[in-house]
């Protein structure tokens, strides 16, 4: 038994090493939690279950938007084995170079994680591919849905969806990279209702990213909840008619049910087939539409500012009656002279009262009315008079956003006192300086939507409901916006009688006889928005029937001249269609749809500046239209 002291040294070395290991194990297993996280990151994959986006219907239950299944082709580079790339490329329609590029990109992202190889294959392509997919190791298909628009109408209103950008992902925790979100139209404004609730499925994967079953028997999984369907206020037939009538024209139509504010049709032309902005072709088509000289992406119905022309005489007269400046019996001399200029009128019987002035759209009558209001002594100064006049105008839903449930609505323009103070100098302007406002010219900028809303106000004799596009969400009434609130103007109901009388005469015996149809009592007013750069814009506003009105409409056809030529027939055909569900004047209809008012594209008359102004910011002083006298 020699050297027995050494045994303790050896024993000690063994003990120390094992003790160090135990301490280390205790640290990594019990104290340090980071390894648990890493283990979960290794093995758990959170697979998003995408909910079906809500469908969209018209007011009669016809489908406007639905979902179509498409297939994203996914690849896991590590699992890709040699295969017949030629037939593979043929099936999905790419070149061999594309193939190499895409595969390289996927490899750069990750060799074991899946990435999208080709987006949104059609059902047809998928059918062919599916049969041979087993030969292409490492590729698999993930279904997705795309929006589809069976009737190809109302692109601006329905809007489109697009992938969320990084900024939004950072801002809104709901969205993840790769998600889709509504970026315009009601897809945008009703995003939260349409999108539904994402679900998640947690699966375990092995080191090659192969699925190995659900985690914890699916206890932490959640099912996707489909988005809610929307029933819109649109009437598909009316919308389609409107788009057909404005084919090959620049302009817009807005039709509203006055008793509810429900928008029956909202047309802007040139437009686009909403199916163009779907899926893999979206960005290509979008940039092409963006480049188009005729600006098909521009929603004229809600964003274009026009001087309302003669149609605004109605508002002017209503305001003046409320302040007792005029009454239905008031007669003005048939002239309006400012300095060396005099406002012209076209030949019509003299000595007109209000009703007749509306019927014949007498320019001097309404310039005089405007001057009598603004320069009235009871308001002390012209500034104060104008300020009050402007407040009245604003109560008609002009010069401010009226709150439609669609994005990108613009406010229009009714200049403030400050504007004229700056333009002419304080105290250096009065009614005779800005009289053209009285006949809807000058600096006024009104959108077609606002014009249609003014028609609702006149039809209702003094109030309107916020125009809106969505009636029902799921099975319930749309309560997301304040739609039941009655917006009352500053003008009493009694003052509307004479105006309606005049408007009735416009159709029965005035400038818009073309608008008559059936036995309906129709109230209308033509207008001509002056366009210093080319032919005037043709405008017609109307509602029908006079008693218990069902439809109010505003039609704007750019560069078409006199209001009765194009705008009034369009409005008339649409009202007839809506009220009688038929078209009794096929030759008028033919003439309308055949009319081509588009400029030849290289026409020098048609420069960018001739388009309705697209304000780049929303201050009210954006739009200045040359002051000129009205020539109806």
């Amino acid at each position, binding site marked *: 038994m020699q050297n027995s002291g*050494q045994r303790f*040294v050896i024993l000690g070395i063994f003990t120390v090493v*094992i003790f160090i290991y135990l301490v280390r194990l*205790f640290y990594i*297993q019990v104290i340090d939690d980071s390894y648990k996280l890493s283990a979960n990151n290794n093995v758990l994959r959170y697979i998003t279950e995408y909910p079906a986006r809500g469908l969209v219907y018209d007011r009669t239950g016809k489908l406007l938007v639905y979902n179509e299944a498409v297939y994203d082709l996914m690849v896991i580079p590590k699992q890709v084995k040699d295969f017949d790339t030629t037939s593979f490329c043929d099936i999905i329609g790419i070149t061999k170079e594309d193939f190499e590029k895409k595969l390289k990109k996927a490899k750069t992202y990750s060799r074991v994680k899946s990435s999208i190889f080709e987006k949104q294959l059609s059902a047809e392509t998928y059918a062919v591919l599916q049969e041979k997919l087993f030969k292409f190791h490492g590729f698999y298909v993930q279904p997705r849905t795309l929006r589809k628009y069976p009737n190809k109408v109302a692109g601006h209103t329905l809007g489109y969806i697009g992938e969320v950008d990084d900024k939004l992902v950072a801002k809104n925790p709901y969205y993840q990279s790769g998600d889709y979100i509504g970026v315009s139209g009601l897809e945008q404004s009703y995003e939260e209702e349409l999108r539904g609730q994402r679900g998640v499925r947690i699966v375990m994967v092995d080191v090659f990213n192969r699925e190995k079953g659900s985690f914890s028997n699916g206890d932490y999984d959640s099912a996707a909840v489909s988005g809610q369907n929307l029933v819109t206020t649109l009437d598909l037939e009316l919308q389609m008619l409107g788009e057909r009538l404005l084919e090959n024209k620049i302009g817009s139509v807005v039709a509203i049910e006055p008793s509810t504010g429900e928008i029956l049709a909202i047309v802007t032309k040139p437009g686009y087939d909403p199916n163009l902005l779907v899926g893999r072709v979206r960005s290509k088509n979008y940039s092409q539409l963006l480049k188009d000289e005729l600006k098909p992406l521009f929603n004229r119905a809600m964003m274009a500012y026009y001087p309302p022309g003669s149609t605004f005489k109605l508002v002017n007269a209503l305001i003046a009656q409320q302040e007792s400046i005029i009454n239905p019996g008031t007669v003005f001399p048939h002239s309006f002279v400012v300095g060396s200029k005099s406002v012209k009128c076209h030949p019509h019987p003299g000595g007109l009262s209000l009703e007749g002035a509306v019927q014949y759209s007498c320019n001097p009558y309404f310039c005089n009315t405007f001057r009598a209001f603004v320069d009235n002594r009871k308001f002390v100064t012209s500034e104060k008079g104008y300020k009050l006049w402007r407040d009245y105008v604003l109560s008609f839903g002009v010069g401010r956003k009226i709150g439609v449930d669609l994005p990108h609505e613009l406010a229009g323009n009714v200049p403030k006192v400050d504007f004229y103070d700056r333009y002419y100098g304080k105290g250096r302007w009065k009614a005779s300086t800005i009289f053209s406002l009285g006949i809807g010219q000058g600096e006024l900028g009104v959108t077609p939507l606002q014009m249609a809303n003014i028609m609702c106000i006149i039809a209702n004799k003094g109030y309107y409901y916020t125009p809106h596009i969505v009636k029902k969400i799921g099975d319930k009434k749309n309560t997301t916006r304040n739609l039941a609130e009655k917006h009352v103007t500053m003008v009493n109901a009694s003052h509307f009688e004479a105006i309606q009388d005049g408007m009735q005469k416009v159709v029965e015996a005035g400038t818009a006889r073309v608008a008559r149809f059936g036995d309906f009592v129709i109230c209308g007013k033509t207008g001509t928005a002056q366009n210093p750069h080319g032919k005037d814009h043709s405008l017609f506003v109307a509602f029908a029937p006079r008693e218990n009105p069902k439809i109010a409409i505003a039609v704007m056809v750019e560069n078409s001249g006199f209001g009765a030529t194009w705008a009034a027939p369009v409005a008339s055909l649409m009202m007839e269609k809506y009220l009688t569900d038929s078209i009794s004047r096929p030759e008028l209809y033919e003439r309308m749809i055949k009319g081509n008012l588009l400029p030849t594209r290289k026409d020098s008359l048609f420069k960018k500046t001739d388009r309705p102004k697209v304000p780049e910011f929303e201050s009210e002083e954006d739009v200045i239209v040359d002051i000129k006298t009205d020539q109806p």
Partner: protein
Amino acid sequence: MRKQKSIFENIDWLIVGIYLALVLIGWVNIYAAVYNEDHKSILDISQNYGRQMVWIATSLVLAIFILVIDGKFFEAFAYPIYGFVLLILVAVLLFGKEVAGSKSWFEIGAFRLQPAEFAKFATNMALAKYLSTVNINMKDFRTKLVAGTFIIIPIAMILLQNDTGSALVFCSFIFVLYREGLSQNVLIIGFFAVLLFVLALMVSKIIIVSVLAGIAVLAIALLRKTRKNIITISVILAMAAGVVFSVDYFFHNVLEPHQKQRINFLLGKDTDLKGAGYNVNQSLIAIGSGGLTGKGFLNGTQTKFDFVPEQSTDFIFCTVGEEWGFLGSLVILGLFTALLYRILFIAERQKSDFTRIYAYGVASILFIHLMVNIGMTIGLLPVIGIPLPFLSYGGSSLWSFTILLFILVKLDSYRTFILR
């Protein structure tokens, strides 16, 4: 000498019990590590766990066979067995099959044998036999030389097979030599050589040598300035400097690229978790995510889903750590500690020098396997591919550890009637 009444007389049941416990734990964990839904039976021969059952059964047969043989056989045939194993090591170099870069396997049908495993107990027996020869003194240079040769020959041949891990195991015999009278300076020098090696990889060599020179000057100043002291200290300093400056050569010219990477990763110089660090990182995640009580049997995702490589062989400890947590680790280390303590206890109760020396060899071999294998899985040592005794999957290793241990059990059973 009287005859044994039965082969089980005087058997150390504690060792046998720990052995059986470790083997069974190993089997269950191999099952969990490579669990295959399609082959749920632990007895399924097509899977590693089914095959391990075969290895366990044959090991038990081997164990009983060893207990049946006359105990004198091992001492008497120590040299022939050693010689025979050396011949096999030569044979494997000539006719062996290369697996994962090491030409260290014989392939017989579906089964493979790794002769290097058997060199361990053979060398241990030969060394014990030599050191137990009468009139041997460790202080003699001749003794050191012969004993060293016994160890160096198998190391050289295994290195030629490119199986660095197995070769490293033979370093454990330093404990045996120390126990038998080798100066403790050898242990200390060895320890400091390794320390300097690691330091030289991490810190500037000039700094290390400067510090060492400083310490030497200080030592000379403090100690008696005899000629002998000064020469000794100078020689030590020169050797240390030699180690430090040879590190680069050794590191770049002797080590394989993967070995360099593993060392670099351990020292924090390489942080590529997908490259050199992948194994260790996944192993750490497996063990670390086990927590106190583990994820439960068959619930270890790291091992079952193949994130950890070699999870039934070299990295079997990951399954223990992941599915049984710290408590599982504690049980395994506890069993090994008990085994090592028991072997050392047995060693010291022997009247036979051969048995005592052999026992120290057994303890040393088991200890170095334990230290290197678990140290690698918990990121304290570089990745060196040697099995965890009794637990890792593999016929050669289980057979060789069984033979190694049961020869000791057999030798120990003679403790009461061998007088010398």
